[in-house]
């Protein structure tokens, strides 16, 4: 065991003191924080160039309303004042409206207005059809522009036209504006957890109930992807650099593999601790830490441990069996499918964590660590027997992976030449 620990200590220290690890740990929060800072700093960096739109109002009743609403918008809605007072500053572009009378040759009018847009005299033009007030007609407002990605202007036109159309229709029905607002008022739905006899019932945070299982699953996936392929490279590199034979003269191949596995698991747990610590800190900052039970952190640590053992041993066995990176990549492909199964099943599990599909797939050992964690993180969580069964099955599967990987490692670590076929790997596993 001392030799296993010697290998594990070496592998762990080499990994966590490497520049790549330090950069990975530091840079990820820097990137995430940086993205927030950049968004904050660029929030006011909007194009304030005035947009001129020509309106062809075939109803003859809407242009004045649009013009009036635009005056109000340009006077009040495009300015913001900071919380601490001070001068209002413009945060949105000003619009100007030009009246264009309808013509009998609508096509010719459209060409002329389009040419004015092309020569930057206009930003867009809109044609309001004659029958927009009649709900039985399928009349529309047609908006023409050469910058369709700019949605603020067409959205504003739509809002103003529809507001006026609704107002006029309700007037025709003899309803006041207050009546309309009363009719349109929605009934909100609030979601809560179950009521305890002696406990306080808490309102559920929809974002939180999605983010915790989703974030945990993504973090676990990241841990597996950062640690397991690195193990493959590590073993393959030692083999290619002819270091392996020296190592296995001092430790048995199984001790070597186990030491490397422990070291890699240690690296994964260290990374997880750092990120979970950061997540806990953020939860406290936003005062939602009481919504994430501490046992969930423990479940995460337990399942990430199992995931790292399973995929770490499989990847290290592939590294030992191959002599070239190209060969290793072809053997990695089916294993990568196992790694991404949980990602593919994430949506149905988040949507319906207790469905038969969710239960079955979360008991498939290679997918269990990520999916069972996700199910536990979604209240009320799976039944106790499911968790116990998942733990037993996955622990047995992880032990089986380590045992089989040890067998492959023993034969493969000194083998040279072409990568073994899958059948050959199986025969190595079955070799006494």
């Amino acid at each position: 065991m001392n030799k296993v620990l010697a290998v594990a200590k070496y592998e762990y220290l080499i990994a966590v003191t490497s520049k790549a690890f330090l950069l990975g740990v530091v840079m990820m929060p820097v990137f995430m924080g940086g993205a927030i800072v950049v968004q904050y700093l660029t929030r006011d960096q909007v194009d304030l160039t005035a947009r001129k739109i020509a309106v062809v109002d075939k109803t003859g009743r809407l242009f004045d309303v649009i013009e009036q609403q635009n005056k109000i918008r340009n006077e009040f809605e495009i300015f913001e004042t900071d919380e601490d007072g001070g001068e209002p500053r413009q945060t949105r572009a000003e619009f100007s409206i030009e009246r264009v009378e309808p013509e009998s040759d609508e096509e010719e009018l459209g060409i002329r207005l389009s040419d004015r847009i092309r020569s930057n005299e206009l930003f867009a033009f809109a044609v309001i059809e004659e029958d927009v007030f009649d709900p039985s007609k399928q009349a529309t407002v047609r908006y023409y522009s050469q910058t369709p990605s700019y949605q603020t202007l067409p959205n504003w036109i739509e809002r103003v036209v529809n507001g006026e159309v609704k107002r006029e229709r309700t007037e025709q029905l003899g309803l006041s504006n207050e009546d309309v607002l009363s009719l349109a008022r929605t009934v909100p739905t609030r979601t809560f957890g179950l009521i305890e006899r002696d406990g306080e019932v808490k309102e559920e945070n929809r974002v939180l109930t999605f983010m915790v299982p989703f974030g945990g699953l993504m973090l676990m996936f990241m841990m597996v992807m950062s640690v397991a392929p690195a193990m493959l490279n590590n073993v393959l590199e030692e083999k290619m650099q002819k270091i392996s034979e020296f190592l296995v003269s001092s430790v048995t191949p199984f001790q070597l593999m186990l030491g490397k596995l422990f070291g890699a698991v240690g690296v994964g747990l260290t990374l997880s601790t750092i990120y979970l610590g950061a997540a806990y800190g953020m939860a406290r900052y936003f005062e939602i830490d009481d919504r994430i039970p501490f046992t969930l952190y423990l479940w995460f640590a337990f399942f990430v441990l199992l995931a790292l053992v399973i995929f770490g041993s499989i990847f290290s066995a592939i590294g030992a069996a191959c002599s070239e990176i190209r060969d290793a990549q072809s053997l990695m492909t089916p294993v990568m499918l196992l790694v991404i199964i949980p990602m593919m099943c994430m949506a149905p599990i988040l949507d319906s964590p207790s469905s038969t599909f969710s239960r079955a797939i979360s008991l498939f050992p290679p997918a269990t660590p990520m999916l069972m964690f996700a199910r536990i993180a979604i209240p009320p969580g799976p039944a106790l027997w499911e968790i116990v069964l998942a733990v037993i099955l996955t622990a047995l599967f992880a032990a089986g992976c380590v045992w089989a990987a040890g067998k492959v490692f023993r034969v493969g670590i000194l083998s040279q030449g072409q990568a073994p076929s899958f059948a050959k790997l199986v025969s190595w596993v079955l070799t006494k």
Partner: protein
Amino acid sequence: MRARAPTITPLPCENIVSVVTIENVTKTYGSYTAVSDLSLSVPAGSLYGFIGPNGSGKTSTIRMILRIIHPDQGRISVLGDDSASAANDQVGYLPEERGLYKKLSVRRMLQYYAALKSMPRAEANEAIDHWLKRFELESWANKKIESLSKGMSQKVQFIASAISNPKILILDEPFSGLDPVNTEVIRSAVLEMQRRGTTILFSTHDMGTAEKMCDFVFMIFRGEKVLDGTLDEIKATYGADSIRLRWEGTPEQLNSIREVERVIDMGGFQEIQTNGDSRRVLSQLVEMANVSLFEITQPSLHDIFIRIAGPEVLEASREEEEVQA
């Protein structure tokens, strides 16, 4: 044609403790037999030459001694322990194919190798300092391996195998790729370790080097033992009847002499094995043609190997080497 083991009587080793004993070991890889029914005994404190051409089964045997691979049949005992469970901290090993962690410092890498041999940290640092000083590498202790020259790297590789002061040091082709200066440095270090009591098991295909250094010689060819004994004993067995001859006559004339048993053409001269009085051979030769060299010699290991295995076998071995290359 397969080489047969000569009928050399094993050494009388009653007073010598054997540190490695191999009994009737066979190892196969699929249909290929790497080692066949091999038995040997390495005396404690000896410099034991394990020789044979490339591909003869040396590395497989060494890997079995180190428990890196396991025999299909037979028994292997190292320092009295024949369990196949764990590698032995008392055995140092310098593999034929050597590599180092290029990104590590010399000291850090040697510390790791020492830890794998279960050496306490303080003891390891002491040994590292000793060996770096011995090879004049002190100033390179904290430099990365990738910054070392090839010669320095080879010295560091040797230190890695000897760092734990093992009772047995197994060197697989230790001088392969070394320049003459570094060869001498390593050779001197090996002999120093032997004087301090370490048993050296020295594997090489270079029979000349083995002949210069080894007390005991074990020759393997195509997985089978062909020679085993002390150098003196082997030469005594094969030596007295060898004559080196350079003359103007033909091989047919040589074969016509009744006392000549075998003629091996070595290029510049012929080696003759006789079964009788060498003076009678000389007198007949002189009558046939001019003789410029007539020397009664002890044969080299190379000569003995050719004699046992036959020149055609050596040729076949060379071809095998070329195919492997």
